[in-house]
């Protein structure tokens, strides 16, 4: 080597032992970003990808052109579902620690994304979620028991024991089966949306990936196809600042926001406060209007923070400051909505305490029911013959043979 190395290596603002530092996050004031008509030409609204759409201000008031003016019922529904999602996560995290399930992933701190967007979509819109969108299932009405049974791989498991925990699906509620392979759902969502346009239907598709996953080629295929065919799709990047141990700079977030990824293709991007349920609702409505009226796709970046570990398999104290979440300038999405409701006089601390207690009981009851379908160690167990089904539509002969071999061996002493 002739010179000193000069490769640029991205560095997070703070590592363990250092003070959290979010000065890199560019923030706009609540209410400060213009709201264009939803059919505006992409090149005229590039500012949306760089600024930050916010509705809730520091006094917990809704302000500015993006205020969706939601009525009390919707706001309370949003709060209830955020509380429920968090309580569900908390319970599942704990049962994983007790060894009842093999693995778990929380959405702590990111609940507003699923709940806010879920509320802004129509039931016929097809969802292609990532593994941190449990709120979408809960909001659309998937029973907690069903989600729990999936995590338990028990006799009530919707995936018949095939998938790891959190890899849910709900075909009846238009939610696609989750994949462990990052970003694969993105081009699939675009294809679904193209299908909708080919058939002349108004349903749109919506998909989510994390900041880290935007590096995958599938992310870029999706944007290209969506832009080329002006597909009725909303593509979301949930920028929770971290991808396991690597901060969002390793996915290219240091210089330009993820929301700007589609600009080169003529696809509008909106950067939104991912902890502000009202702002999320509003930008999603804007994008659904655009897509449904034939004006094409939108990329939405949600600026939020991964409040918990990546999964139950890692310990974030090894790579980021322990108190980083507390220092995150956009706060906690559930608390911000709660404060807004208190401010409006629609809610009280007593009611919140009662809601949290009631929710805990709902989750407890669901868990009791879920384990009655079996756990990893207690019967009833799923029939292992299921392993050979659904590889193909009909079980081919060689798999029938292998299934019989398995059954024969199971009957024998070793």
């Amino acid at each position, binding site marked *: *080597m002739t010179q000193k*190395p000069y*490769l640029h*290596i*991205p560095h997070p603002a703070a*590592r363990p032992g250092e003070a959290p530092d979010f000065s890199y996050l560019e923030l706009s004031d609540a209410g400060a970003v213009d709201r264009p008509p939803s059919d505006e030409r992409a090149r005229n609204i590039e500012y949306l990808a760089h600024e930050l759409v916010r509705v809730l201000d520091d006094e917990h008031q809704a302000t500015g052109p993006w205020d969706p003016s939601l009525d009390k019922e919707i706001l309370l529904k949003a709060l209830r579902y955020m509380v429920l999602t968090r309580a569900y996560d908390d319970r599942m995290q704990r049962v994983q620690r007790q060894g009842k399930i*093999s*693995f778990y992933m929380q959405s702590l701190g990111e609940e507003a994304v699923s709940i806010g967007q879920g509320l802004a979509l129509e039931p016929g819109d097809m969802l292609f979620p990532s593994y941190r969108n449990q709120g979408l299932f809960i909001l659309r009405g998937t029973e907690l028991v069903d989600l729990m049974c999936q995590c338990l*791989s*028990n006799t009530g*498991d919707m995936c*018949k*024991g*095939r*998938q*790891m925990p959190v*890899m849910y699906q709900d075909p009846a509620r238009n939610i696609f089966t989750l*994949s*462990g*392979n*990052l970003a694969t759902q993105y081009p699939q969502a675009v294809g679904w949306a193209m299908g909708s346009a080919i058939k002349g239907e108004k349903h749109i598709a919506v998909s989510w990936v994390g900041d*880290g*996953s935007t*590096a*995958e*080629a*599938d992310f870029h295929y999706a944007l290209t196809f969506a832009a080329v065919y002006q597909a009725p799709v909303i593509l979301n990047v949930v920028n929770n600042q971290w*991808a*396991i*141990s*690597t901060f969002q700079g*390793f*996915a*290219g977030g240091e210089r330009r926001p993820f929301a700007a990824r589609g600009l080169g293709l003529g696809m509008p991007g909106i950067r939104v406060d991912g902890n502000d349920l009202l702002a999320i609702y509003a930008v999603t409505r804007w994008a659904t209007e655009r897509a449904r009226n034939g004006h094409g796709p939108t990329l939405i970046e949600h600026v939020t923070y991964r409040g918990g570990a990546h999964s139950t*398999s*890692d310990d974030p104290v*090894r*790579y980021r400051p322990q108190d980083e979440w507390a220092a995150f300038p956009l706060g906690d999405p559930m608390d911000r909505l709660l404060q807004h409701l208190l401010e409006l006089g629609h809610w009280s601390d007593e009611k919140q305490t009662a809601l949290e207690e009631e929710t805990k009981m709902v989750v407890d009851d669901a868990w009791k029911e879920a384990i009655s379908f079996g756990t990893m160690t207690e019967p009833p*167990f*799923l029939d*292992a013959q*299921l*392993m*050979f089904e659904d*590889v193909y539509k009909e079980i081919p002969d*060689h*798999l029938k043979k*292998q299934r019989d071999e*398995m059954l024969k*061996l*199971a009957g*024998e002493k*070793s």
Partner: protein
Amino acid sequence: MSQMNMIQAINSAHDIMMEKDPSVVVLGQDVGYFGGVFRCTDGLQEKYGEHRVIDAPIAEGGIIGTAIGMGINGLRPVAEIQFADYIYPGFDQIVSELSRLRYRSGGEFFSPVTIRTPCGGGIRGGQTHSQSPEGIFTHISGIITVMPSNPYDAKGLLISAIESDDPVVFFEPKRIYNGPFDGDPDKPGVSWSSHPMGEVPQDYYKVPLGKAAVVEEGDELTIICYGTIVHVAQAAAKLTGVRAEIIDVRTLFPLDIDTLTKSVEKTGRCLVAHEATRFCGYGAELVATVQQECFWHLEAPIERVTGWDTPYPHAFEWKYFPGQKRLAAGIRKVMEAG
């Protein structure tokens, strides 16, 4: 000598090669500051700097493609793919590029990339953290495919892989990272410290590519296997009381045909076992090779014990995994035939 588990042995191979050869660089998801999700690259970034141990974006095709470019430019990249199940976005770069650079350029270009990736089941990883895709890679001309079964071999083979000017895909059976596993999930885990192959020299040494190991001598039956199944086969042979010669292939390509044929000529019976699915699996190549080389010495049809031809299910891990019972049944079948 010191005691090492497979993770420490792999880490040590990196360390020695990075110390010895400044052109060795490491890249992959979470490999730098964090030291890898399985900790195989722990401490290397601190020691060799951020320009040599590089955290990568989550793009396997990008990792392998850029590793190829670094290799063309005189570096010796070791790329980690976090799970073998996630290697497919990089598949085109391996099949169409890495494996054929030398051939298509008339020998003018090559890239000495080593791709390391954890494989195999037994950790409740379901269909996306349990796969054994080695047979897909052995089918490609132009790459070397390796899968060690213990810390000593892992270190020696990885050093050979990094030094090799031909590209290597290096599979690490993650179930045996921390200790040998005989296929019985109900037994408490054992560590490598009680295993002779957990004795690993601290210094540089090589285990040659293309050489199988006879891990157990015997005269009644030859069991050909690799990775985690080596340990399962040992336990299964004990269970049946058959004097089996157990061969750990170690390097899947190039295959050490001599060691296999010598053994089968002696025993006259052969069982091939792996965790991967059966149809067109690597075992099919082993069976064909033994059949061709040893036909006149065979006293019974060659038997195959493998994973079932389904994706790897989460709930039925131990019904899917070819454990002792299935291997023992296979052993009995070969012994009773003919």
